[in-house]
């Protein structure tokens, strides 16, 4: 593979794709010692008298950990909540698929854990691209989350004494991860769902399932409602509120193949972005190293296996490419390359997610991958066949601990692997490959979780705030619930105290305009009547993103990608075939709208990646690496949040920088050797 030489910095290729804007700052976090900031904000936030709360309506889009928790909590507080989800029940949100656990600084293990340590680990794990104030608060409320969930009846793992068990996770040195077997996300979500259904019963929350948000209504500079499409009848209708909360998750499905659910999409946040909400750090995506590899062209999604497997499994590929088709059990030790142990003797197989992922890609790029051949289009336009998999071998662990012990620890994961691949991992090594898992980027929010549109709040994975350039394991559940249960309900009142706002109606000009836009898009999609299915476009978009904006990015590649995306978008609007009509349950139409938005987001992701000429966390720029091939951060130029403003179709976005100021933590370069 050709190595691109670093270009002179004087000509920044990204400059052609955006307009520089003014710096922005979070203005809501109070000054003072970090541990005093959240109590101070809670005290200064204006309150809403309990008797006035029922006069105020809040729309919440999404029913995952962040949305479901927020809807339940605001309902309990007495607000009038309208809650929406695209699934048939709020209990299906994709938070449900999280396996490993949830972090909390309880220090139950007496192992020197503290709020400060959780804060420190999260900022460091995020490669110093997260905002200190938000992360500290996250660590501060983490303990309350566990209390709340236990009280709701979440069946966390317990010791024989009846108290909660914890385990270590994601490379940190304390045992602060609470878990419920391999189904922690499911149990936490069901807890939030039950709290939500209790409020539905109480009449404070109205639940609208099978409704997809397709537009945001902004009136008088404030977020005042949304437009939804009823996915059963096709009806496109407006809903009004005094504030709108988006808790719609991440956008990993821009890559087509990811560990996200099939329906996960960017539409809600992208529509808000088009209406003025800044999109922050869109290029920060997390590629998870331990997923089940792609089996062929008909693959629809990827399945993650908990990274706890790396505690005992050893990762290797054959030393010689000609051994890659052999039965791995026939390859002698001397012909195996345990490459993580070789390159990173200190951390070995437990290096952070981004490093484990990139090295797996490097091995396969060298032609030493294993498993079935997958056809790929290379950057020079030719097709090639590559094996995309590395071995995760438990033979040594089974020898050391015995099969029974391995079964007790990982049995459910082994069963899952066998069900999907048909191979028995007790006998033959697992094959794994990295897959897109989580997006750290999202809508820009301040300390109150309010976006750049007044009255529009963003929670959970949908916002950008807490994980910087890389998320630590067991922190997504923590953030979703922190935002939903404890942060938003203490900040949104500051805004709502100014309400109720002017009454809205269908004849309000912005409502009519938003309705027109939403209906117009549907009509446009249905009227193309081209020759290609929505999925075929989505797959092509995913292949472009994976190749050029995946685990390793270059200035040259990203510019190629932008050209390809623009071309694909044009083709899409000229050649897509959406069957059926709007006034029906029409899944092709649902997907068509989502893919159209992914096509727009994809370009912004590439521009953001092109602009960030440094490697940090999950974002690896080939031009920015140390002599021995490790990520090289550039704090002098890029210690900022890139918040992008939409300026119109075909127009250059504006880049606003929020400088990241580290008052309490010293910036350091990560090293895992």
């Amino acid at each position, binding site marked *: 593979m050709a190595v691109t030489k670093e270009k002179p910095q004087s000509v920044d290729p990204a400059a052609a794709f955006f307009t520089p804007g003014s710096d922005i700052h979070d203005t809501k976090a109070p000054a003072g010692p970090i541990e005093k900031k959240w109590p101070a904000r809670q005290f200064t936030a204006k309150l809403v008298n309990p008797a006035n709360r029922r006069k105020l309506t809040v729309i919440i889009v999404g029913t995952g950990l962040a949305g479901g928790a927020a809807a339940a*909590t605001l309902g*309990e507080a007495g607000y009038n909540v309208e809650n929406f989800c695209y*699934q*048939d*029940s709020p*209990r*299906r949100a*994709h938070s*449900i*698929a999280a396996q490993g656990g949830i972090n909390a600084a*309880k220090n*139950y293990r007496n192992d020197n854990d503290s709020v400060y340590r959780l804060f420190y680990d999260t900022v460091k794990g995020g490669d110093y691209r997260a905002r200190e104030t938000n992360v500290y608060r996250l660590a501060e409320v983490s303990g*309350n989350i566990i*209390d*709340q969930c*236990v*009280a*709701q*009846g979440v*069946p966390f*793992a*317990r010791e*024989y*004494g*009846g*108290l909660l068990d914890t385990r270590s996770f994601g490379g940190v040195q304390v045992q602060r991860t609470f878990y419920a077997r391999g*189904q922690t996300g*499911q149990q936490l979500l*069901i807890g939030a*769902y*039950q*709290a939500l*259904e*209790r409020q*539905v019963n109480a009449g404070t929350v109205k*639940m609208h*399932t099978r409704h997809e948000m397709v537009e945001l209504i902004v009136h008088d500079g404030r977020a005042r409602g949304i437009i939804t499409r009823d996915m*059963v009848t096709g009806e496109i209708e407006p809903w009004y509120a005094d504030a709108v909360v988006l808790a719609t998750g991440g956008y990993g499905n821009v890559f087509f193949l990811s560990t996200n*659910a*099939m329906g996960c999409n960017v539409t809600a946040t992208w529509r808000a972005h088009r209406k003025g909400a800044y999109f922050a750090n869109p290029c920060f995506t997390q590629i998870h190293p331990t997923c089940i590899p792609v*089996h*062929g062209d*008909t*693959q*629809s*999604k990827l*399945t*993650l296996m908990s990274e706890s497997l790396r505690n005992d499994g050893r990762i290797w590929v054959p030393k010689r490419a000609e051994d890659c088709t052999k039965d791995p059990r026939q390859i002698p030790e001397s012909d195996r390359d345990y490459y993580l142990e070789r390159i990173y003797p200190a951390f070995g197989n437990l290096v952070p997610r981004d490093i484990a992922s990139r090295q797996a890609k490097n091995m396969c790029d060298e032609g030493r991958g294993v498993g079935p051949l997958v056809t790929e289009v290379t950057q020079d336009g030719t097709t090639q066949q590559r094996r995309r998999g590395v071995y995760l071998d438990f033979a040594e662990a089974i020898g050391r601990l015995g099969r029974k012990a391995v079964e007790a620890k990982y049995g459910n994961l082994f*069963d899952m692997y066998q*069900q*999907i691949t*048909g191979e028995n991992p007790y006998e033959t090594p697992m094959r794994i490959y990295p897959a897109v898992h989580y997006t750290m980027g999202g809508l820009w929010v301040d300390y109150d979780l309010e976006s750049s549109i007044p009255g529009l709040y963003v929670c959970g994975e949908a916002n950008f705030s807490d994980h910087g350039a890389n998320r630590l394991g067991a922190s997504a559940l923590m953030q979703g619930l922190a935002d939903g*249960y404890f942060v938003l*309900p203490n900040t949104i009142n500051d805004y709502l105290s100014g309400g109720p706002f002017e009454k809205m109606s269908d004849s309000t000009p912005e409502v009519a305009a938003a309705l027109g836009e939403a209906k117009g898009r549907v009509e446009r999609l249905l009227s193309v009547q081209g020759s290609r*299915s929505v*999925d075929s476009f989505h797959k092509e978009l995913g292949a472009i993103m994976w190749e050029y904006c995946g685990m390793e990015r270059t200035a040259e590649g990203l510019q190629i990608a932008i050209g390809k995306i623009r071309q694909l978008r044009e083709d899409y609007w000229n050649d897509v*075939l959406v*069957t059926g009509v709007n006034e029906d*349950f029409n*899944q092709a139409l649902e997907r068509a709208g989502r893919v159209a938005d992914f096509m727009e987001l994809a370009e912004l992701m590439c521009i953001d990646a092109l602009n960030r000429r440094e490697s940090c966390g999950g974002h690896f720029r080939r031009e920015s690496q140390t002599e021995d091939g490790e990520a090289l951060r550039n704090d002098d130029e890029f210690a900022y949040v890139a918040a992008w403003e939409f300026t119109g179709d075909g127009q250059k976005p504006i880049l606003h920088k929020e400088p990241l100021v580290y008052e309490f933590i010293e910036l350091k370069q990560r090293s895992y050797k």
Partner: protein
Amino acid sequence: MKITLKVWRQARNASTGAMQSYQLNDVSAEMSFLEMLDMLNEQLTSQGQEPVAFDHDCREGICGMCGVVINGAPHGRYSSPVATTTCQLHMRNFHDGDVIEVEPWRAGAFPIIKDLVVDRSAFDRIIEAGGYISVNTGSAPEAHSTPAPKLQADRAFDAATCIGCGACVAACPNGSGMLFTSAKVTHLANLPQGQPERRRRVKAMIAAHDDNGFGGCQNIGECASVCPKQIPLASIGQLNRDLIAALFHADGRNS
């Protein structure tokens, strides 16, 4: 391999449906059942026909959104060596030349929306009636203030793994939702936090179950045999014991 699919097509709730045959020529053993349906839909789309509507989301066997009856068994249970959701059923369990029948859940409480998609909101209404512990955000005591014996906590967990897919209802000759209801009752009844509302909960949930058009339970056991999460049939025993105990106490849904 070549597969012949017979799929239930129904334009909407009010219309009559029928089985329709489709031929797929290029199915691979590695594909999941839903990827095989994706392939059918791509084929239909390219012919300008409407794709088959089916519910699905996580495709990891945990969200509970997918579920169709395959050759007469919910989630294709009788085609798979292990308990499974539809999304985790793989085509290696079928053979070249097979004819596979695909139908929606059929139950009075789950009206058909389109093709293989049904309305399972009745499940939400059962939970809404009392499938929770009433605790407002912020009012929870310290997590370790109430120890929970491990055995009961594990039992609670086994029941809490229910994904609400509805296979139990589809399998039951009476269209009963008792396994689903009892899973939640058992989950919360085995935890100390669930005790204050225990009697009220079971009465309210059973009432909602009956009000929403589910049939009665006769302990046939089809439900547990198809359950992808293997919720034990004994959960229904727990529900019955709790219900009988609750009937002798005043705290109920109207109290």
